[in-house]
């Protein structure tokens, strides 16, 4: 073990799971989770399930773009705005 890395149990691994999936952990803490998942099939199964779920939510909810009429209306409105801020 280097860099303060230590062995963690299931409770701790699952407690950090979302931060691990979201890549919000420091490299040392992420490596601890990764090592735990490598040797713990039940936790790995939870991790795979949660990752799949998050990908699914993103795919379902991100399929929308700003409507073209909004973009057009906005660009038209901007033409009526002065280019310099007031008082400058």
């Amino acid at each position, binding site marked *: 073990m280097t860099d303060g890395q230590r062995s963690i149990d299931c409770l701790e691994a699952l407690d950090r799971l979302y931060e691990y999936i979201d890549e919000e952990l420091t490299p040392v803490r992420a490596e601890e989770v990764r090592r735990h998942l490598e040797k713990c099939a039940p936790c790995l199964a939870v991790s795979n399930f949660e990752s799949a779920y998050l990908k699914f939510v993103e795919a379902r909810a991100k*399929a929308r773009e700003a409507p073209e009429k909004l*973009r057009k209306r906005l660009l038209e409105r901007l033409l009526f705005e002065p280019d310099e801020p007031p008082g400058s």
Partner: protein
Amino acid sequence: MSDTSGPRREAFEAEALPHLDTVYRVALRLSGNEAQAEDLAQETMLKAYRSWHQYKPGTNARAWLLTILRHTFINEYRKARRRATEVDVSRIESFTVFEDVQETDPEGKFFEQIVDEDVLRAIDRLPDEFRETLVLSDVEGLPYAEIAEVTEVPVGTVKSRLFRARQALQRELYDYAVEMGYIKRRDE
């Protein structure tokens, strides 16, 4: 004075306009309907343009726009939002849906049968602060620190809201999938 290609407009078009899709999608989830989302998104972008001199070039334009959006929503639109029955996020325990499906569908294939509109409807039933946190993270992909900045809470609060929002939404979607016959409940 040129109205079409001044430096402010150029900078705004380069740094702010690329985030219009994000601003619109978040506006849609905050307000709950398309007409209001368009008004809210347009108002946000116009306010941003008018106060562009307060933006520091090269910093995070997305977080800045989303902060303006959120304030505009809270001050002018929130009262008008039609309330659906809210999902209860107070009694969330860890990974209980996985426990229910680990023997029948451990990869969560049942999710794939749920269509966009049903997922969005379930997201819309989350309480405000949980919905905005989940949308910023799981739809728009903002890091925790940026969500904390936009929603004006500590990162620890973002984490706990996100955990409960994700688990509550997952439970809603699972119950819906059971109801639709996409998956059998464990004890059936």
